[in-house]
Structures are given as structure tokens and as C-alpha cells.
């Protein structure tokens, strides 16, 4: 007989699922996230996994984690540390010993705390038996053996049975947080459509885990998090890379162009390729090229032939694309290059996040080669920035680099969906066919951009290429004065984009003691920290940049009004150096981190307090 425990209402909670990289922790975390999203919680996620598909089993480097922060109020970060940790083995416990709140709940799979498991994790004795975790609420659950017991009559082989144990863990956490199981049941039914025995087994284990949690009375109570108070509308849970893909599809539809993606697989950008390749039904053409260069060059070929040409990559891939990007710049072809930034240099930290490709995006080409650069700042607004990057490329006839990062790309949050009719029309800069004597490099007055004539259009035959071109005609020219003129015209075209973008916004009072400056994916952590400190009556404000090149026109005014400025970024100071070059009179402090991890609000608050008290 089970007794109904008291249900306690929480405002928010951070839960981390951690296990071996083959334990299915990403799936488990995603299921908990999707279920919570459907209940109307606001949330943010942080998947953190090794670069190896199956890193050495049972070791600390092989630990895969998924952290999710859910709440009934606005949630902007996946949380600094977890309230509840699910640790499927000793390595997962060890890897997360500093990411669990003092006094928090730790659910461990006690079956995997045998001597060999402990040794693999580098423990001489069990950390559960010394006082390593004194003061924590440790729930020792025999997850593996209960899963075996649960499925002993299922007819499945031993390996398949043990593989279902993540559902047992999920069942425990579902009970603990009063979540319904239907969403996950539906997911399992769809995922294993052709294998009913696997569906039944997983659902049974999920329920057995749920019932086990209710029965053991190890938890003093279960918890619930009510829906968040958010603006009315239709919502869905969305990941950054998916939002990026959809933003491009929306842009193509609004521009009335076909969408062409040339891409080469690379972590953590491949999911954009995967997502777009699903949507052939909407006319999306995806081309998995033989390498990064072919990926961008095919996209440029498609753009020349009239499509919205895009290419997606991460840092090392952008390095390989550099030469072609220069060609897009000098030929003045629309193109969007997405760089889902990861830890560098070189192969670096493929599955970790960083913002260290800003200088590469700005300057990583030969010659005078400015391009438009924009950055997304939340998983969901990757949609908006993919759309905006496409608009700028098509209306200003120039390549655009869209910077996201691993944290945004893999992270998820609820998204209040846009309707296409609410998005601005995109008007690709094209000839209308009535022009006499087409000059491929004649420019529009306001934008300084050129009009494209697309192959297949009668009487507009012309040649473009990477050699310097004579102003207006586009014919090859080695004339010194002409080269200088063209360098200037191309640079001015990018500068003029500032006339077509909104002003930079500031969150808080512009006359602030401390202005926090960020760009791109650090928004959630910076915003959470600054709004908390504002509630504590500190004079602090935030401005987060999405337009990087050119900067919004009022940028200098914002900087002039602040007493102190600190520029925070996940690199060694690339944006701050860019700002210093543009605004030599302004004094910028900087706060940097290169650990392959997002900021924590704790470290940010500490640093901001120090600056305010100095």
C-alpha cells in the first residue's frame, strides 16, 4: 500500500541527469524537458557530453550530463548548480560533485557502485560510505537490478533489458516532480514503431520506476512546479539548431526563393543539416558536400543561380571556408554562413561551447573583406537571427556570418511561435528585367548594394569572379585607383547596414554605475545576474549585442552614459578588443572565461560586485 506524500510547490528547480555516455542521459533529460514544457513551465537546458561517442566506459571523461532548469517564473539559464542529481555510476557522481547544491538530493544507481566501477571512476572506497557527501539526501536505488526484475518475463535479451534502465530513473524523477508520463509514452511508441516489444518494455520500466519512487518513501514529499506566467500564445519547446533551420525556411518562404544548404558534418552544427534535410517537402535542397570548401562553394553556386544559399559549420570549418567567403564578399553575392561556435583552437573542445570565433568571423580572410556579422542570443531566437541574417544578405547583396554556439545550438527553451504573416517581407535585390545595359556592379543609392541578374534571364548575361572588378561594369580591372574605390565601396556597403537595423537596447537605467556588455549566447546568464542584482537595488544595467558588424548607430551613446563598463565573453577578450579599436576613448573592463562552459550567475555576480565596490 502506498501512502500519498505531501506535494510541495516549488518556484523552480534544477535537475541534472548524469551517467555513462551510453546510458541514454541525453534522451532522459530531453524527455523530462519536453514533458515539463508541455506542462507550461519555463525552462532552459544544458546538455554536456564528451566528444567521443562512447568514451571509456565508467570513467569521469566518459560522463554525459543533461541539466534542465524549470520554473513557474522566467527562466533564462540552465542553473548554476543542481537541486537534484541522478548519478547512474560513481564517475557521474564524481564529475558532478561540485555541481550539486549543498543538501541537495542525489539519486544513485547503487548497482553500479561495485569495486570495479569505483576503480574506473578513480575512487578507492565508495564515496557513499565515507563522508564525502555528508549533508546530502542520498537515495540509493538498485536501478539496474530492478529493471532486470521488471523485464525478466519480457523475452528481451539481457543487454536490451539493461539498456532500459534510464527509463526507470526517469520514472523516479517523474514521480518526484509530479509529471505525467503520456508524453514519453507517445515518444516511445513513435521512436520504436516497428519494435512493439521495446515499446512495451520501456513503458513498463518507466511505470515501475514511478511506482518504486512512490512506494519506497525515501522522499519526504514530491514536488510540483506550476506553469509559468508567460504571454498568451502557442508555445513549443525548441532547440537552437532547430530554430536556426526553421528561421532559414521562414526567410526563404518570405523571400519567395528556394532554400539551398551546402554543408559538411561538424559538431555541434550538424543538427541544422539534419533538420533541413527533413524538409524536402517544402522545397528545401540540402547538399552534403565532400568537404567544408565544397559546402560553401555549392551554396554560392546556388545563390548565383537564384536561391537563398546558406552553409553551416563550426570554427574549424569556418577557417576552411575563409577563401570562398572572400569570393562571396568581392562578388557581392548573398550568402549566410552559420558558425555554431565550439571550444578552439584547432579541434579544441568539439562538444563544448565558446565564443572564440569572433575575430575569425571579422577578419579571417585575405584582403579588405568586411562582412555583416550577427549573433543569436537564446536557443529560440536563433530563429529570428537566421531570418534576419537572410534578410540582410538578400537585401544588401553580401555574405553574412551568423554566430551561434554549442550552448545555444544544443540548448532548448519554450518558444512562443511566430506566424509568417507577422514577419517582415524579404525583398531580394534583383533586376526587374526592364533595365537596359545591365551593369552588374551599379549600386543602389541607399544601401550601396548591387542588383543581381540570375542565369536564365535573357539579355543579362554577365560574368562575375574573384579578380578585382571595374566599378559598375564588373570587368576585370587592375587599375590602382579603381581598386581603392572598390575597397571603399564594399566597406561602405557593410557600414550602411547600420541605417537598416534597430538601435541597441539597454536593459535597466542607462545612467548606471556598471554597464554589463555581452554579445550572443551569454544573454541568459548575464540577464539573470543583472536582474537579480537590480532587485537588490544595485545600479547595474545590461546591453547585449546581436548586431556585431556593423554595430548599431547609438552604441557609443550607450557607452558614454555608463560610469563603468564590463564586457563579458567566453573567450580571452575578442569583442572587447573590437570595441576598444572602435571607441578608443571609452574605458572597458573585461571578464572572460575559456573553460568550454557557460558563465555561472554566481561568478558573474561576484565579479560585478567587486567592480561596483571598487
Amino acid at each position, binding site marked *: 500500500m502506498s501512502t500519498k506524500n505531501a506535494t510541495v510547490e516549488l518556484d523552480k528547480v534544477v535537475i541534472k541527469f548524469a551517467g555513462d555516455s551510453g546510458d541514454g542521459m541525453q534522451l532522459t533529460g530531453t524527455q523530462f524537458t519536453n514533458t515539463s514544457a508541455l506542462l507550461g513551465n519555463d525552462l532552459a537546458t544544458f546538455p554536456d557530453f564528451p566528444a567521443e561517442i562512447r568514451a571509456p566506459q565508467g570513467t569521469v571523461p566518459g560522463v554525459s550530463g543533461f541539466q534542465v532548469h524549470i520554473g513557474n517564473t522566467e527562466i533564462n539559464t540552465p542553473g548554476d548548480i543542481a537541486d537534484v542529481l541522478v548519478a547512474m555510476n560513481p564517475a557521474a557522481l564524481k564529475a558532478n560533485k561540485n555541481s550539486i547544491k549543498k543538501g541537495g538530493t542525489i539519486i544513485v544507481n547503487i548497482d553500479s557502485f561495485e569495486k570495479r566501477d569505483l576503480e574506473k571512476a578513480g575512487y578507492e572506497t565508495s564515496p557513499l560510505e565515507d563522508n564525502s557527501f555528508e549533508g546530502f539526501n542520498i537515495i540509493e536505488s538498485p536501478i539496474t537490478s530492478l529493471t532486470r526484475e521488471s523485464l525478466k518475463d519480457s523475452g528481451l535479451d539481457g543487454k536490451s533489458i539493461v539498456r532500459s534502465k534510464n527509463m526507470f530513473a526517469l520514472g523516479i524523477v517523474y514521480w518526484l516532480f509530479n509529471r505525467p508520463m503520456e508524453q514519453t509514452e507517445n515518444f516511445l511508441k513513435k521512436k520504436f514503431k516497428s519494435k512493439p516489444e521495446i515499446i512495451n518494455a520501456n513503458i513498463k520500466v518507466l511505470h515501475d520506476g514511478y511506482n518504486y519512487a512512490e512506494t519506497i518513501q525515501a522522499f519526504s514529499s514530491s514536488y510540483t512546479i506550476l506553469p509559468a506566467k508567460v504571454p498568451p500564445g502557442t508555445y513549443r519547446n525548441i532547440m537552437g539548431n532547430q530554430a536556426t533551420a526553421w528561421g532559414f525556411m521562414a526567410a526563404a518562404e518570405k523571400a519567395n526563393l528556394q532554400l539551398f544548404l551546402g554543408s559538411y558534418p561538424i559538431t555541434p552544427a550538424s543538427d541544422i543539416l539534419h533538420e533541413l534535410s527533413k524538409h524536402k*517537402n517544402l522545397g528545401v535542397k540540402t547538399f552534403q558536400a565532400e*568537404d567544408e570548401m*565544397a559546402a560553401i562553394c555549392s551554396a554560392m*553556386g546556388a545563390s548565383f543561380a537564384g536561391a537563398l544559399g546558406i552553409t553551416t559549420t563550426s570554427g574549424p570549418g569556418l577557417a576552411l571556408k575563409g577563401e570562398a567567403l572572400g569570393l562571396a564578399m568581392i562578388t557581392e553575392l548573398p550568402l549566410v554562413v552559420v558558425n555554431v561556435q565550439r571550444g578552439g583552437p584547432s579541434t579544441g573542445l568539439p562538444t563544448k561551447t565558446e565564443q572564440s570565433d569572433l575575430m575569425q568571423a571579422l577578419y579571417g580572410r585575405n584582403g579588405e573583406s568586411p562582412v555583416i556579422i550577427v549573433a543569436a542570443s537564446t536557443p529560440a531566437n536563433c530563429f529570428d537571427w537566421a531570418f534576419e541574417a537572410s534578410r540582410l544578405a538578400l537585401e544588401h547583396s553580401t555574405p553574412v556570418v551568423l554566430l551561434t554556439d554549442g550552448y545555444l545550438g544544443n540548448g532548448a527553451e519554450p518558444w512562443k*511561435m511566430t506566424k509568417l504573416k507577422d514577419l517582415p517581407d524579404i525583398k531580394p535585390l534583383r533586376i526587374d528585367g526592364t533595365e537596359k545595359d545591365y551593369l552588374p556592379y551599379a549600386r543602389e543609392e541607399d544601401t550601396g548594394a548591387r542588383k543581381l541578374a540570375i542565369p536564365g534571364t535573357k539579355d543579362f*548575361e554577365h560574368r562575375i569572379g574573384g579578380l578585382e572588378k571595374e566599378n559598375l561594369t564588373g570587368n576585370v580591372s587592375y587599375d590602382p585607383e579603381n581598386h581603392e574605390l572598390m575597397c571603399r565601396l564594399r566597406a561602405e556597403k557593410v557600414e550602411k547596414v547600420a541605417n537598416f537595423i534597430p538601435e541597441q537596447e539597454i536593459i535597466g537605467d542607462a545612467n548606471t554605475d556598471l554597464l554589463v556588455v555581452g554579445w550572443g549566447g551569454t544573454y541568459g546568464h548575464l540577464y539573470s545576474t543583472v536582474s537579480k542584482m537590480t532587485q537588490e537595488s544595485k545600479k547595474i544595467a545590461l546591453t547585449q549585442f546581436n548586431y556585431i558588424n556593423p554595430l548599431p548607430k547609438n552604441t557609443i551613446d550607450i557607452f558614454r552614459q555608463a560610469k563603468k563598463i564590463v564586457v563579458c565573453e567566453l573567450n580571452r577578450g575578442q569583442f572587447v578588443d573590437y570595441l576598444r579599436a572602435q571607441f578608443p576613448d571609452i574605458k572597458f573592463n573585461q571578464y572572460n572565461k575559456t573553460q568550454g562552459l557557460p558563465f555561472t550567475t554566481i561568478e558573474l555576480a561576484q565579479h560585478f560586485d567587486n567592480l561596483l565596490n571598487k
Partner: protein
Amino acid sequence: MEETVAPPLTHKDFTSDQDVRWCPGCGDYAILSAMKKALPQLEHKKEDYVFVGGIGCAARFPYYMNTYGFHTIHGRAPAFATGIKLANPKLSVWEITGDGDALAIGGNHFIHAIRRNIDINILLFNNEIYGLTKGQFSPTSKKGIKTQSNPHGITDKPFHPGKLTLGANGTFFARVSDTNPKMMQSIFLLAEQHRGTSMIEILQNCVIFNDNCHSDVTGKDVKQDAQLHLEHGKPMIFGKENNKGIILNGLKLEVVTIGENGTTENDVLIHDAYTEDSTLHNMLTTMSLPEFPVAVGVIRQVKDMTYDDGVIAQLEYEKENAKFHSVDELLTSGDTWEVKE
């Protein structure tokens, strides 16, 4: 409404207003001229031709054609051509490349375009040297020749463009010399009519850095004995006296003289360019002096699904069987929830 019939195109319609900047005597002039004469014989409209070049002397070709053209970057022309063709399959796409562009820096793109069998035409001007960078050896330079970048004689073994094409499962391979304008024209036409990647190796002379590199094959006095002109369905007969032939002896080709040792015309191989099995095509492609004549003409021309057709067919199928037809429908598909006022 009555349709007005445009006057037929001539080679002049394809001449751009740009000064041609190849060296006097360069083999490229003859190729350009043959191209301008070949295109009016095809059915495409002028605006549907796109010429794409990489980097090198050959790759400047698009500037001299009054069509749509894209002079791109070193080695990557196949990727641009692929994007152009996929975005608009009705265009006739011609890639002009050289031995350095296609086989050194662009080797990867070259083999992958051929592997996919995308419907483009590749003209590889093979002069066995880097011209535009002033005389370094290329991947097709003959072993031992002395160049700027190895004055002691190169130790590399050369690539063979035909073998590379067939090795990548190429569906069309032809060889022709820049001294034979008529054959060039006819091969250009066959290449465009072939659905798939048509790869044409042009034995092209660089008067400045590798003069006469092909003259043992193309020279007026020697060509009849040094070339075997292959035509589908025709016997492999060549020579000044038209009395030499190619036979298969065991697993090897052999040159015979008709009328000697009881050999008759019936013993000579008949060229089958259409057969899928590339064994004989490989042997014919690699024939070289002095034991054999060099094969020219269309060596291989086989039917296969093109990459672009495959892409379009998949797209059409998915469109017909689609669950949703707009981005709005996609956004609201799957798990969503309503938040009310």
C-alpha cells in the same frame, strides 16, 4: 499570339567584349573557338549557359564567353557548378579547368562531382604544367622533366585524368587535342547531350612553359600513327596506311598490322563506348606511346541516373506526400501548448 522565331545563334553571339589575355599561340584559343562554334548547334537558349572556372589560365575561359559566367577560386569550380545545377537543373553548366586546378588543389571536388554523376560538363585543359604561376610541375607532368620548382627533374609519378575519371565511376570520358577543332566540336556536343558528368581531357599545348608537350601525339607528321580515333561501333583501326588495329590478346591489348600473320579486319576490336563494364575503357584510356597509339574520341559514354535527377525526384516525391505545405504548418506541428490570457 504568334511566336516570333529568334534568328539562330552564331559563334559571334558567344563572343564577350573582353580582350582575350592568353599568350599568343596558346592552345586555349582553338578550344575557345571550337566552343563558340559548338554551342549554336545545341538547343539551349544563350541565357541558359553558365561557364564556371577555377583558377589558372584555363579557368579564365568564362570571361571570354558572352554567357553567364563565374570565375571562382582554385580547385573549387566543381562545387560551384554543382550548386548552380542543383539550384536550377535546366541550366547547361560547363566547368573549365586545368591539370593543376582539377587534379591538385581541386582533386577532391573533381572525383566527387564525377562520383555523383551530376549533369555538368568538365573540360580539363591538360598541358602538364602550371602556366599562370610560371612553370611549376603539375600532377600530370611526366616524371623526370625539369621545371621551375624542381630543376633537377621531378620525382613524382603523374596522375592519369582518364583513370581517375573511370576510378570514380565516371559515365563519360573523352580525349581530344587542341589541334583538332572538328573533333573538339563534335565531342562538346556529345558531352552536352550526355546526361551526367561529362569529362573531356583536352591535350592542350602551353607554348611558354611546356611547349610541344603533346607533339609526339598531336604532331602533323606523327598523329596518324600516334592516335587512335575511337568511335562507338567502329573498329579500332589507325595508322598512315590505315592498316593497324587493336586486338585483345589474353588480358592485354596489342597492336597488329592487318594483312600480316594472317590478321584480318575481323580480328580488330569494335569500340563499345556504351558498355557499363569499364575494363576495356580503362585499358584504352591508358594506352600510351611508344607501344600503343593514344586513344582520342569518346572512350566511355554510359547511361546512369544523374545526381540532379535523383535530388529532384526525391523532392517531388516528398512534396506530393507531404504532411504540411508551409512553414506555418511546420511550426505548429508536433507537441505544442496554448497559454491563455
